[in-house]
Each structure stands twice: as structure tokens, then as C-alpha cells.
């Protein structure tokens, strides 16, 4: 089987959620991804849940999902011996992605420089970037979200701002790093030029959409921190139905009119109480009661089918227990089950995109490696002899 990224060599350094998510993009499409982990245990391996709530360095759910199809080697990158290994591993790599503190990253960049000449592509992921007065600050998923303006909007005025789901921010940062890393790989394959890419987590989150800065900067508008259900441009937000909730994005025409028809109230589509921009907010509770009465007699899947038949933008709010059996997931095999040594069958998400057909073999998720599973194998591949490998272990450079 030939996968699209067969032949690429990617070095991933740091063991964080961000860099693991970035590496996964490459590894499942066939790249040779070497995961360099610190002796202190990668953060991604520490995150719950674990099977039966028993922690294990090789069994954390986030590690099992994000480290698929990679090989693991432990190297202490702070030591000269460790840097020498990384230099040898990286010299023929297409890309090195690292998520480590700025001073450590700068040290590693330097080993890939010959004067001003960069010997391979390097992407650094740091909270605030490689330069500037905040470059050495220590942040996590929660604080990065705080910086992004998204926490502020994800709240109700006067109440505590909220993050999204745990690690949503740092995964987005990793996905961003993978994208620009891929551009560097493409360019290197075309013109042989290497680039140094500086991904600041704050800038990656704030510069993308779903941030409130752009809108404010260009017209001074602050998005309201009201309740989830919009009382101005409705229905928008979650509404209760017989067995759960439906999420609507149906406040504007033509979708609003389709909704009115679908619930058997075409008169509401032209009723000025609900169409006049000044009157509409005053009559929110009236409309809400009408819609909730209609939803109360239907399950979320029944309402989904009926409303979507009329082109109404709405979706059932699903919880974790419903994901695998959702009809679309089942049809597309959006989740896959595979065997993981020491655990048995586990279920993870399938490909983020489908190349050359729904079920092609362009994407394949192989088991996530146990910690240091491939240390000896990788060192041998790169020319280290048996006694040298033992010496590195004895010196604490590898484990």
C-alpha cells in the first residue's frame, strides 16, 4: 500500500498535545514520524481518561488518539548527547516540529544551522512566539484561550468567561502548525529551500476566525455576551425537544421562512412581530413557546429529519454515548476500532478527510507507540552501535 505521505520524514519534539496533534496529521497519511519524547514523560501521555480509570503511561486516551502511526524515542534534548542524536535524526528530515520552551527551541534551531543557512525546515510552537517580552511566559490551554478573546465571548455578561472543551485551543494550534509545516515541506520538495516558522499559540488562535478581535478592530462592534439562545435573531442556539436539544441557526431568511413552513406556521414568516427588526426582539418569548411546543412532541432525530427536509439549519445536540451510532458516522465509518497492545480494541476518530474514495487506504491509523518503544530501532537506523546505545542509556540521555 502506498500512502500519500510515504517518503516524508517528520521529527516531532516536546510531547505536548499541540505537537502530538500536529504530528498525527502526517503520520496517519504515511509519513515516517519520529516522536521524540522527554525523559520526564510527555504531557500528552498524562491526560485522562484511562481505561477503567487506572492511569498508565501508554494508555491515556489523548495519547492513543494523537500518537497513532508514530514511532517513539526518548531523548533528553537538554544534554549535548541528546542534541547530537537530534541533529543526526533531523539532518535528512523534511520537517522538525517542536513545542518546547523558547530558549530550548533556540538551542535546537542552532544545531540545524550552518552559519545563516538552515539545514532543514523547522516549525516552533510556543505560547507567544520566539520573540518579544512574553516569549518566556508559561501558559496552558486555559490561558491561551483567555488570550484569544474567545473565552470572553463564550460566557454570559457578568459571569465567569469559559473555555471550550478541554484542549480545544492547543489542538487547534497544533493543527495550524501542521498546515504551515506542510507548506514548508512542499516548498522544500519543489525548490530545496528550508524555512523557519514561528507559530505563536496566541496569534494562531486570535488571528483565525471565531475570534472577536477582527470585528471590533474594523467597526468597533463587540459581540454580545448574552444567553446561548439569541433573543434578537432567532431561532439561534439550543432548544429543548422531547429527548434532548436541537441547535438552530435559522434566524435569517430564507431559512427562517423554511422553519415556519416546516412547523406548520407559514403565517409566522410574514408576521411583523417576528420579521420587523425592531419588533422581533420584543416577541422572542412568544416565538420560543411556539417552537418549543412543536419540538416537545418530537425526538431530536425526528425533528432533525423533518426540519432538514425543508432546508432548516438545525442539528441534534449529541453526547458522547450517541456519537458512534449516529447514522452518518456509521455510514462513513467516521470512527474506527483497532487493537492496541495491552488494552484490546479501542475506538478513535477516523480520517479528517477522504482521498480517492470514502474507504480508501490513503489514511491508516496504526497503534500509538509505547513510551520509548522504538528507541533502539531508531538509534540503530541512524548509525549508533550497540555499545553506544547502552552508553546513551547509562548516561540518562535515553530511557
Amino acid at each position: 500500500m502506498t500512502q500519500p505521505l510515504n517518503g516524508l520524514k517528520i521529527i516531532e519534539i516536546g510531547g505536548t498535545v499541540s505537537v502530538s496533534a500536529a504530528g498525527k496529521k502526517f503520520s496517519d497519511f504515511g509519513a515516517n514520524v519520529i516522536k521524540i519524547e522527554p525523559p520526564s514523560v510527555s504531557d500528552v501521555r498524562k491526560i485522562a481518561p484511562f481505561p477503567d480509570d487506572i492511569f498508565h503511561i501508554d494508555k491515556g486516551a489523548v495519547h492513543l488518539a494523537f500518537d497513532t502511526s508514530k514511532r517513539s524515542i526518548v531523548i533528553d534534548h537538554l544534554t549535548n548527547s541528546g542534541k547530537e542524536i537530534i541533529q543526526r535524526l533531523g539532518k535528512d528530515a523534511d520537517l522538525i516540529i517542536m513545542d518546547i520552551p523558547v530558549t530550548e527551541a533556540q538551542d535546537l534551531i542552532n544545531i540545524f544551522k550552518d552559519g545563516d543557512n538552515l539545514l532543514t525546515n523547522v516549525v516552533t510552537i510556543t505560547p507567544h512566539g520566539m520573540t518579544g517580552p512574553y516569549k518566556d511566559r508559561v501558559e496552558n490551554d486555559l490561558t491561551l484561550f483567555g488570550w484569544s478573546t474567545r473565552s470572553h465571548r463564550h460566557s454570559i455578561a457578568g459571569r465567569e468567561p469559559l473555555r471550550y472543551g478541554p484542549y480545544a485551543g492547543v489542538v487547534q494550534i497544533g493543527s495550524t502548525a501542521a498546515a504551515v509545516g506542510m507548506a514548508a515541506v512542499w516548498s522544500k520538495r519543489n525548490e530545496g529551500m528550508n524555512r523557519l516558522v514561528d507559530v505563536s499559540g496566541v496569534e494562531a488562535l486570535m488571528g483565525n476566525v471565531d475570534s472577536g478581535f477582527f470585528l471590533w478592530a474594523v467597526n468597533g462592534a463587540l459581540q454580545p455576551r448574552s444567553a446561548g439562545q439569541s433573543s434578537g435573531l432567532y431561532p439561534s442556539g439550543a432548544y429543548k425537544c422531547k429527548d434532548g436539544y436541537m441547535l438552530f441557526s435559522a434566524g435569517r431568511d430564507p431559512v427562517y421562512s423554511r422553519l415556519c413552513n416546516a412547523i406548520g406556521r407559514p403565517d409566522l414568516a410574514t408576521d411583523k412581530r417576528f420579521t420587523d427588526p425592531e419588533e422581533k426582539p420584543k416577541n422572542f418569548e412568544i416565538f420560543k413557546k411556539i417552537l418549543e411546543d412543536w419540538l416537545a412532541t418530537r425526538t431530536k432525530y425526528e425533528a432533525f429529519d423533518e426540519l432538514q427536509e425543508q432546508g432548516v439549519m438545525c442539528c441534534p445536540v449529541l453526547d458522547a454515548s450517541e456519537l458512534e451510532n449516529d447514522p452518518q458516522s456509521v455510514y462513513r465509518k467516521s470512527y474506527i476500532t483497532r487493537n492496541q497492545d495491552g488494552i484490546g480494541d479501542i475506538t478513535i476518530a477516523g480520517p479528517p478527510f477522504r482521498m480517492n474514495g470514502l474507504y480508501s487506504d490513503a489514511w491508516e491509523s496504526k497503534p500509538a507507540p509505547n513510551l520509548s518503544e522504538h528507541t533502539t530501532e531508531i538509534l540503530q537506523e541512524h548509525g549508533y552501535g550497540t555499545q553506544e546505545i547502552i552508553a546513551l542509556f547509562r548516561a540518562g540521555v535515553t530511557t
Partner: protein
Amino acid sequence: MSNKSLEGLKILEMTEAWAGPVCASLMGDMGADVIKIESFPRHSLTRPTSPRYATMPGEGPVYERDALHHQGNRNKRNMAIDIRKESGKEIFKKLLLDADVFIEGYAAGKIEKLGFGWQDVQKINPNITMISIAGWGLEGPYKNMVTLGAGLDATTGHLSLRGYPQGDFVDTHPNFHSDATGSSTIFFAALTALLQRKKEKKGTFIDLSQWEGLVWQFPAILAEWTMNKRIPERLGNNDPHIVPHGVYRTIEEDKWIVVAAEDDNQWQGLCEVIGKIEWTDLMHQYSNIVGRIKGRTEIDAAIESFTKQYDGFTAAEILQNNHVIASPVVTPPDVLLSNQLHERDWHQTVNHKWTGPIMVGGHLWNVEPDTLSWDIPTALVGQHNEEILTELGFDHDYISALYANGTIGNHYEN
């Protein structure tokens, strides 16, 4: 787009809203020649013809001044073509001939009806990569269903996890996380296909379900169920294994700060700052993480007693100087208070015909040696019609006829 990483690539983008357009802008940032094929005569979702909250000040048509449109459409050229007309199809076929990537965002089946499904496109250009980004993909029982990013979020389990603990779903904001993350996934997909083309010497079709592009990012949500048969709780900002890990009030009304201490060293730094050094004594119950988890409420109260004395930026600086994880909860205007972003020249000033100079957010990444720049402000509808049609070999008279018969345009009717 002074950066030349993707120089030589020709990208055709026929998408609306955010995920597709932002992806194409990112490619434009890196030197690709991106041509946005604007819907015509129907205007897109982000080009409303009546003023709304996102309308930017200035003169000229409202649809040229929508912030949500500007946010996702830098560094592109723009054509407005009615591809339902045969004359419009003729133009688009010529564009496809030497294009490298075609990204389309129609609902499943629509592009086939217009004559540009994969079977048609690969006959025109066997080397092209075509990416369809329908919400749930092109196959499956939901393929014809309509959604925005907020709906996709609801069906990944993410919405069920967001929001206030013990809160109601009706209080949880819809979000557009899938648009923010989808752009980089489409970007990655396009280049994956182009690398494959180098080996196989032929083009590729990609069915990119934005739902699938989102759901892989939440492995812990699914695993709580598949591993332990639990539905994850809504925790707000809490982490069950880290204390403190929360958002706290500052001296300013409804302004907040994030504080966390993930290990004993950060805890030591925090206690020194908030005047609770006794909490680090080995014999004190809070000197270890197990004790801190039991004392979350008291610890949170002590932290807030400190943070309420300062504004968020000042408190965060004091805490960070003692190696504690801390950040202000930044509002959009607060972004301008960040010395870091100023030092890195992150903000950009762009001059647009109808808005004049505007300050906008910067790029998602920095590159050396060829840095990024915002060279082409968001293009006007049909701004590059003549330029591109001339490149394709159409003459002036024919282009005039295309305007006259409504095949192309450079304005929308209100």
C-alpha cells in the same frame, strides 16, 4: 504574500462563510495565486446588501464592507461569474485547465448539477486536486443536510461539554470552532494531494466532511464513553486533576483573569504571590496536589482575594514573573494592550477602497526568511474579472459582452 512557499500554485476557491475562504487566504499568504470565484448574481452569506452589525464604516456598497467577509478573504484575486450560464461555464473550464487546486463548498450534489463534479473536472484537467467541503461530506444520510459550524459543533459532542457546570444547554453559546480549525485541515489536505500528485502524476478528489475535520480533535469526549461508559461532565474551567485551574475576578467590573498551577513549583510561586506561603509547608494539607483537590473552594477564594486587587494584565504579569500560569481574559479592545503583539508587529494596517485604512489582526504564523504580508486587501466583487479574463485570452469586446449578458459582474443589486 511576499512569502513564496506556494509560489506557482493556482488555487480556485468557490466557497462561502469562513472555513474555505480562510484556507484560501492562508494559501495566498504563502504565495499561491488564489482566485476567488464569487457567487453571481446571488451574493454570498458574508456579502449582505443591507447594513448589519458587521458592516464596517465607510462609503460604497454595504456588501464591500462586511467585516466577516474581510476576515476571510485577503490575498486573493476576485472574479464574479454566473456559472449557471453556458458562457460562465466556458470561463470556468478555462480557469480549471491549469489550476492546481479547486476548493468548492456547495451542498452535496450541487456542483455536479452545475457540470463541475469530479468526473467532469478531471476530464478538463487530470492533474487537478478537487476538494469538496460539504458539512457532513458528500456521502451518507446527512449529505444533503444544511448546517453552519455551530451545528457541526453540536453533533461532535463538544457542545454537550461546553458551558457552565450544572447549566442548561440553552445558555451555551453556539460557536464556530469548526471554521477556525477547518481552514488548516483543508490547507493540509490540499498539499497532501499535491505531494501525492508528484508521485502519481495525476490529480485527486478529496471529500472533506467538515464534521470529520472537527471530531478527531476531541478524543477524550469519545473515550470517556468507550473506555469507561461515562458521559463527560460539564466542568466549565475546572480540571479534575489540577488545582487551581480557573478564572477569577479582577478589580475591574466583569473583567477576569485565568490562573493555574499544574505542579508543586508553580504552586510555590503562586503561594508566594498571594501571601499564602504557609500553604507550601510540607505539613500543610495544600502543599500537595491531593490536598489541593479537596480544597478547591478555599484556594479559589484566596486567589480571587489577590486578583481582585489588580487589573488582569497587572495581576498576570505579577504571577508570570513568579512562574505561575496566568493570563488576562482578553476582550477585543484589550488586544491592543498586549506589549507582546505590538513588539511582534502583529497588527496590520490595510487600505481598502471603501473603508480606507483599517487595522486588522495579523497572520497565524511567521516565516523566515521570506516573511508574510497582507498585500491584497479583500478584493471587490469581480475586481479582477478583466485582468484574469485577459490572461485567459478573452478580448475586450468579448469581456464587455459578458458583462452585458450577465455572465460576469462587479456589483450586486440590493
